[in-house]
């Protein structure tokens, strides 16, 4: 028994040398990578990596490299650093605007090909070059800019303000016939990185920039949203009778004020969109959106005393959302991007031959959609 145990211990010690090892102190663990295309179709990568060097108080280091492929650029960047750059923990991949406009599938596929790269990493684009966002951000913030951008995105994804944007999600939607991905746009605000919008893709090419609020509209069709705060501007006119006038201390409408809009902040506690194909020949769709909202704030002293005012509020919010959806669809059709996935619905209903991408691209600008928004106002807080 003792003999066997000793033998086992010896074996387990010896066997560890059979596989190649990597020492943490000798590694630069890439955390964030920016990709830009420069002249002559060369790829410039900006790498932010952790390094565990006892002599250096700074835990992250940034390097750039140029090459014809991403991995080539990484090797090139490796000449500037005394650490072995390792891609296993990349958490964020940032693409420059011009790069994204030319298509990013080739860069994404290298990430998939390498089985050691994580599929849960985030994909984002920048409205300038990735290099600028990362280097300027790094200088300004003095902390790890990659991590800050990741938390920015993850926080918004958690709030359902923007759709999930992991590598797996992006690739899955990109490859689906009849649906296009979106990705958050990172820009600099006061030299600090911030989410400035959402990029709409047509296949793997960036074709347009949408407002950040429109990301939520898209997200209602991609997942069940919960707990998203949102600011909505409603026409002031229907509410005039219900706005409390502090100066006259009455419900008398204040004629002197001629504001046009009443802005409210709601928290969308539940939201779900659903697309059905009504007429396959005319490509007429119906999109039903159901939202449950809580009223959190209004720009004026709005008094929600009875059911009537609640009904008016619901109706106005519905109208506003419908308008926003119509604007969104017009814009998406113009830039030929289909993140809501109308094509996917059409594909499942189409009999016979499989839908091809080019076929859907031809049909997409001509589809018509009726957006029906149904809003339920659930809670108004503690005051009426």
């Amino acid at each position, binding site marked *: 028994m003792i003999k066997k145990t000793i033998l086992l211990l010896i074996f387990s010690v010896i066997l560890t040398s059979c596989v190649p090892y990597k020492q943490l102190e000798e590694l630069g663990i890439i955390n964030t990578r920016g990709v830009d295309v420069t002249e002559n179709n060369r790829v410039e990568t900006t790498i932010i990596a952790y390094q565990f060097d006892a002599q250096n108080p700074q835990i992250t280091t940034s390097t750039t490299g140029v090459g014809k492929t991403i991995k080539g650029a990484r090797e090139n960047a490796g000449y500037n650093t005394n650490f072995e750059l390792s891609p296993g*923990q990349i958490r964020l991949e940032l693409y420059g605007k011009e790069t994204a406009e030319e298509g990013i599938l080739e860069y994404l596929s290298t990430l998939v090909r390498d*089985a050691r790269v*994580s*599929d849960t990493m985030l994909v984002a684009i920048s409205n300038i070059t990735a290099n600028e966002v990362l280097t300027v951000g790094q200088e300004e913030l003095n902390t790890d800019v990659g991590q800050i951008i990741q938390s920015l995105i993850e926080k918004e994804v958690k709030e359902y303000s923007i759709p999930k944007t992991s590598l797996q999600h992006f690739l899955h939607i990109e*490859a*689906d016939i009849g649906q296009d991905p979106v990705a958050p746009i990172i820009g600099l605000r006061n030299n600090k990185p911030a989410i400035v919008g959402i990029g709409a893709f047509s296949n793997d090419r960036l074709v347009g920039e949408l407002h950040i609020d429109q990301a939520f509209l898209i997200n209602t069709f991609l997942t069940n949203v919960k707990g998203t705060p949102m600011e909505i501007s409603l026409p002031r006119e229907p509410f005039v009778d219900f706005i409390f006038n502090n100066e006259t201390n009455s419900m008398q409408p204040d004629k002197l004020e001629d504001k046009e809009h009443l802005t409210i902040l709601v928290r969308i506690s539940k939201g779900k969109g659903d697309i059905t194909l009504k007429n396959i020949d005319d490509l007429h769709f119906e999109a039903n959106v159901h939202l449950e909202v809580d009223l959190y704030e209004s720009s004026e002293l709005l008094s929600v005393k009875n059911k009537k005012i609640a009904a008016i509020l619901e109706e106005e919010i519905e109208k506003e959302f419908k308008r926003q959806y119509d604007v969104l669809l017009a814009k998406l059709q113009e830039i030929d991007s289909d993140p809501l996935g109308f094509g996917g619905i059409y594909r499942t*209903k189409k*009999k016979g031959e*499989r839908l091809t991408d080019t076929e859907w691209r031809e049909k997409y600008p001509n589809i018509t959609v009726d957006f029906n928004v149904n809003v339920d106002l659930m809670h108004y807080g503690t005051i009426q």
Partner: protein
Amino acid sequence: MEINVKIKPNMRIQAFYLFFIIVSMQIGVGILGVPRLVFSEAKQDSWISILVAAAYVIIVLLAMLLILKQYDNADIHGIHRDIFGKWLGKIFSTVYILYFAIAFYSVLLTYIEVVKVFVFPDVSNFVMGLLLISLTIYGVLGGLRVIIGVSFVFGVLANWILFLLIHPALQIDFNHYLPLFQAPFVDLLKGARATSYTFMGFEILFLVYPFIQNKNKVRISSLLAVTWSSLLVLSATMLAIGFFSAEQLERREWAVLVLFKTQSFPFVERFDYIVVAELMMVVVPSLLFLMWGLTYSMKRVYKVKQKLTLYVAAIIFLIGTFFFEKHFETQRVINFAEQFGFWFIYVYPFVLLPLVLLKKRLKKRKGAGSS
């Protein structure tokens, strides 16, 4: 060579273990890649293909049981001897031996490749081969009962990785299954054919049947085993189709392994590393049974000592890992094993069955005539 095998009572096993024997033989490296193979033929109707394949496997299994029932306690080599005589019987049995060798080799190479692609790109084939083959030698030296013990323990222990698939299961896009019933019948059959490598392994019944004590439970145990493996293959394929879009799935080599890549916990970020390691628990029982089948058949057919075959085969396989390092070469070995196994496992029992029945009838008539 005796037609019927005499097994000492202390060497016999309960039919209950047949479940683990067949499942651990069927579920090996094949399930990792099967979604892509089926999907590239039958598209979103792959589930029909798999059901067709499973039904066919069950029919083959019933035919095998019917063949075995005609004898008191025979295995495939005894039956060959009885039906085809000394020389022809030996040739047919040799084909079985070759099949075990090729299947062993294909499993070994595939697992080594998975480890190289997912975890250690620099590890040499020889080292991985040495580790796996030492394990195999150690297990096979223990005899059939030890191997069955391994398949039972590993079969129970490896199942927890199924829970890791809950996360990808929640992200399924149900639109990927629509529209239904689009694949033509021929494609469905092609899809069913593509599962043949994955479903292989139940032929071990032809060898272990004499070892089983309570023969009346063999049918239910083996049927349950085949059903369970089919369910695993079916759910893996459905999950992969729902999770990946068509274009992705057609290009993913080991789709089932990639499913684990999206799972992440605060304490382990990358679960695919653990799954690849855990996969050894799934692969080792297959390797053990295939090696045992090889050595035992050599003993039955050529009266070669099991230990001698074991060591010689181990050395040959170890040298063999040097060659076939490239992906497409490995694929070629798998394809060869698939082609080879297809005729021998899925078609051959139907050839054997009428011969066995005919022989029995002739014998009976002869017996009746002489009395």
